[in-house]
């Protein structure tokens, strides 16, 4: 499943997509993220029949993504995003650049 966490408002789209078929809940993104955006849970709240751990973005974090991720997204010379870099499964993507 592609889980899109985030929001859209007048200024743009701010979504983090997690491919839950790839994610195995290893938690490396949690460690890498300075904004504590991610959280590993034992079962996918959006898939009651899945019993393996998976990463989610909590609702209150999802509503503030533009600001939470701000420090990782400077206007110039942007390095790779820590969460995307950390994920061995290539499960994370972001919908916005800055």
């Amino acid at each position, binding site marked *: *499943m592609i889980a*899109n966490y985030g929001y*859209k408002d007048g200024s743009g789209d701010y979504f983090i997509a997690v491919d839950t078929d790839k994610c195995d809940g290893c938690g490396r993104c949690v460690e890498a993220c300075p904004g504590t955006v991610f959280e590993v849970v034992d079962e996918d709240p959006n898939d009651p029949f899945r019993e393996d751990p998976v990463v989610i973005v909590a609702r209150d974090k999802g509503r503030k993504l533009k600001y939470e991720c701000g420090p990782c997204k400077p206007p110039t010379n942007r390095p790779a995003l820590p969460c995307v870099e950390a994920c061995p499964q290539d499960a994370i993507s972001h919908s916005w650049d800055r």
Partner: protein
Amino acid sequence: MGEEEKKQEYWRWTESNWKNPDIKWEDAKIVTVGIDVGSVSSQAVVMTDGQVYAYSNMRTGSDSPESARNALNLGLEGTSMPESRIDYCIGTGYGRVNVPMADRSITEIACHARGAHFIYGPEVRTVLDIGGQDCKAIRCDEKGKVTNFLMNDKCAAGTGRGMEVFADLLSVPIVDVGERSFEVKEEPEPVSSICVVYAKTEATGLLRKGWAVNEVLAAYCSAMGHRIFTLIERIGIEKGFAITGGLAKNRGVIERLTKEIGVEPMHTEWDTQIAGAAGAALFGYALVQKGKGRRK
């Protein structure tokens, strides 16, 4: 204008309950209940062996536990079924963790996909749920399992609550908004902002400019439709397009939205507001069958 008219609550929609006359609950093997406590409305669906036996749809009260209780009471009203007969109960919706009688909670994303799959049939691939304070777009497979979803709950624009505020503002009963928005000579430009905070200023401005109330309604409905369109575009819309939630009943928004999307929405005889609770009850049924739904 009489005092009575002034007091009218234009946002108010009718609460309801229903009981399936063809089902005798006494014959059921497994009874499951789904309770969906949304920010604006709450529903309880009672299923006997995976079929809808009874349901209720009402306004969410001041707290979730009480709303869940009221929805269940209304759902069981006149059925003579004792609550002890319920094998498994699942809470969903905004207030899902505060449903005291629930054995487990499941997100509204999973429940809406499952419920839409049930009330619209297995051809459903895209579900749009326009709830009281959020808007969800979900893609699912032929089994009703979620494959892609997004949810926007950041602002009230493009939600049921936004429409309630607007109906109240223009003193038009909410159930008439859709119909009246088509009673215009010519489709007006959508209002530029549908932010609930600015809607008042903008609507008042338009009325002052000489717009008819119906024209303002049309402009607002089409702005709301467009807003929802730009949101669901992200996940892509496939044929087998189902709309759930209260706003599914508002022709003014839905027809403008689907025109923009270019995909005809599916039809159902069921009340579109019960999708989440129906999905929850179905999950309960599946879990009990799998032997996972043991009461605590």
